[in-house]
């Protein structure tokens, strides 16, 4: 906890600098001009989402193998952070699409697979809320989480496999892709800032899940003690 404040301040400074760099240092793009600057936090949101959901996938597999509660806590925490990042990515995409394409939304392969991914993980969170028994909840949600993750690589390759309204990838997109060097540096700073925020939020979310577990155990102990004292009173009366 002692390192929490300096790390938070460092990420806040990085965040401030990333915002400044995206708005004022990155060069103007030739066709879209100002609105292209959404790219820096749009792509960063997706990168944070892929990182969080990959972590959730690892945690889900680890739970099924080891049955240690920490993997279940990490799984649900990562999924929530992934859903939040996905929501940010979808909102920025919609707000970029309107001025760039003239439409808010289209059902092309990239946008549709993203939306399905978001729906799948929302379902994961709803599923967890419906199951009371902790072991069963962890196992079913881990299995569902692994199934949901199958859509993540599909999102990544969708605009490589199919012709889409969404532009072709600018990074790892083949010979005709690439970024201006300054744009690339600004993107790296924005990604680092967004990833920093996602990690901080993930740590807090994990703490929350651990606290829930502690509370459940305390409630059990309190119930057990109450039941024992009741049976002692009954025996005394007999």
């Amino acid at each position, binding site marked *: 906890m002692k390192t929490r404040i300096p790390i938070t301040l460092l990420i806040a400074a990085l965040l401030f600098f990333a915002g400044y760099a995206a708005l004022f240092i990155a060069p103007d793009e030739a066709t879209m001009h100002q609105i292209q600057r959404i790219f820096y936090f749009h792509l960063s949101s997706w990168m944070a989402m892929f990182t969080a959901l990959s972590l959730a996938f690892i945690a889900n597999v680890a739970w099924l193998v080891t049955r240690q509660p920490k993997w279940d806590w990490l799984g649900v925490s990562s999924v929530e952070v992934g859903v939040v990042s996905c*929501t940010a990515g979808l909102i920025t995409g919609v707000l*970029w699409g309107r001025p760039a394409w003239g439409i808010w939304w289209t059902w092309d392969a990239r946008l549709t697979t993203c939306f399905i991914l978001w729906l799948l993980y929302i379902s994961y969170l709803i599923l967890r809320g419906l199951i009371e028994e902790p072991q069963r909840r962890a196992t079913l949600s881990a299995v569902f989480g692994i199934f949901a993750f199958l859509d993540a690589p599909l999102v990544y390759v969708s605009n490589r496999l199919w012709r889409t309204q969404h532009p072709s990838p600018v990074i790892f997109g083949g010979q005709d892709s690439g970024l201006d060097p300054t744009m690339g540096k600004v993107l790296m700073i924005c990604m680092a800032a967004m990833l920093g925020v996602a990690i901080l*939020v993930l740590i807090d979310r994990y*703490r929350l899940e651990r*606290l829930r577990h502690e509370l459940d155990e*305390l409630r059990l102990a309190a119930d057990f003690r109450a039941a024992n004292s009741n049976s002692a009173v009954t025996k005394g009366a007999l």
Partner: protein
Amino acid sequence: MSNFHFLLTAWIAVWAVFFGYELSIASRIARLREEVDRLKQQLREG
């Protein structure tokens, strides 16, 4: 400059989503911490 409001809205939306989520976590942690402390106290007192 005509599209600047989209850029500004996207910028605000991203951070509103993240900070709103962080605030919700912080409030849930505070509530649970209170409950944990209350139960611990109750168990100590027997």
